[in-house]
């Protein structure tokens, strides 16, 4: 069925105008929790690479290091950077017992561990 009235045209036009003008902040704030603390900063190669490296932890530790409710696998978001670094090193040298983390951490360099730790420290849990 096709409807065409001047009223309808005006009504929809004004709704459209309102939506379009409100768009930029709405588009960002609707998806707020998906962005890192660097939202306000323009995309740089180094921030992107840091974020992508941290994302290699997300498969087990949840997106942005935020785990699902009741997860026995610990979350990483918000952990102090120095803590994460010491834990990763303890897994790597065997002083902290693990089922899999000793095997994973041996794949990461000290610089990569620092980068990942810094990233998660910047994320709100």
């Amino acid at each position, binding site marked *: *069925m*096709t*409807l*065409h009235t001047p009223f*309808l*045209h005006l*009504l*929809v036009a004004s*709704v*459209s105008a309102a*939506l*379009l003008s409100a*768009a930029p902040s*709405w*588009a*960002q704030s*609707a*998806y707020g*929790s*998906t*962005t890192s603390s660097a*939202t306000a900063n323009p*995309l*740089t*190669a180094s921030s*992107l*690479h840091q*974020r*992508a*490296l941290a*994302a*290699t*932890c*997300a*498969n*087990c*530790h*949840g*997106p942005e290091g*935020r*785990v*699902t409710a009741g*997860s*026995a*696998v610990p979350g990483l978001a918000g952990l102090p950077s120095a803590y994460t670094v010491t834990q990763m090193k303890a897994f790597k040298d065997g002083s902290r017992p693990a*089922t*899999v983390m*000793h*095997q*994973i*951490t*041996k*794949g*990461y360099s000290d610089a*990569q561990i620092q980068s990942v730790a810094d990233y998660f420290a910047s994320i709100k849990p």
Partner: protein
Amino acid sequence: MYNLKLSSPTSVLSRRGFLQQSTAWGGMAALSGLGLSACATRMPEHAKVVVIGGGYGGATAAKYVRMFSQNQIDVVLVEPNEAFVSCPMSNLVLGGSKTMADITTPYDMLSSKYGITHVKDRVTNIDAAKKTVLLARGNAIRYDKLIVSPGVDMMWNSIEGLAAAQASGQILQAWKAGPETMALRRQLESMRDGGVYAISIPLAPYRCPPGPYERASQVAHYFKQAKPKSKVLILDANPDVTSKGPLFKKFWAENFGGMVEFRGNHRAIGVDAKANAVRFETENDVKADVLNVLPNMSAGSIAMSTGLANTNGRWCNVNYQTFESTAAKDVHVIGDSLLAAPLMPKSAHMANSHAKVAAAAVVAQLSDVAVNPDPMLTNTCYSFVTDKLVVHVASVHQYVAAEKTFKTVAGSGGLSPQPNELEGIYAWNWAKNIWADTLL
């Protein structure tokens, strides 16, 4: 002037009605840039990034393009299914400790939380020159970048009679989780005590190396409780168990007694549906009550038909730093469909890992910043040998520019010492967390 189509007079202020009207004005291009939630009625004509396939690879890629680009890059995901059903953990449905609902996650968060447009359709063709994908319904969508994650498809012709036996519902694969998973479970439930379940495994590489052995373990776990006189026969084209071999074999011997039998070097060439038998290249026919025959696998059909599967006509070759196809510019391919790098398994965890590297590369290239020179991939693969006991295999892969491929990092990775309950807990939590990472 304007043709305003309304489904009902009150729908003028509903989003659905609004989007239908705005299509007539050509306002869709502006609106799609706002990241509005997807609507089944809305058909985009262009997106900066189109993703084919909503599995562990594609869904992750779509989501991470949005995240890495801080929602500046619009994404269309073409995936026909209503909800995501996980292959990992689906063997637990066969074993009886989980339900289909436990392994199913809806897709709608990708739209509502990340502003991805989910088009419920299939892609029937890719025109890499015109940078367009063609949908089954006839529409075309133009892309700046295309990410293809088509998974695997069964090479039916590799086993004579199998396609017909599968179509009739008699000889199933259940290697893409969904209705076939339940159908196979029903076959096991209906089987008489004292019957035989046989799984036939193709030569590697195939999707999920430890998967068939986890399945055999799950079926044995079920039989041990419900039909203890029954048998599980593993008929493997490979000479030996391809993943976690010593761990599986020790557990089968110690926990299932003589119930589980492994026979290597059994390469299936045909099935006899009437006789319920599998025929082999060099070994005698084997009859069973429930036959679960896995043929050779290849890259998913869209990769095969478009030439993205350009190695041995079977797997997709890519530039591993960015996952860009060697067959088509600005087309990135990820997941099981790839020609594997050394020691790179075809796993869900790996597809999710690929997706993030590809998403970062795509965002970098679209944003004119440098692509990561040394991306990383990790994999952890958990196998349930009962409802509670698990073994894992883990690996860490570093891109090595000098060799233009991913190599495992020396000294990293490894296996469980033995099946254990703690890892059973971690394994289920891994599933919940990776589903959140991929879809929520």
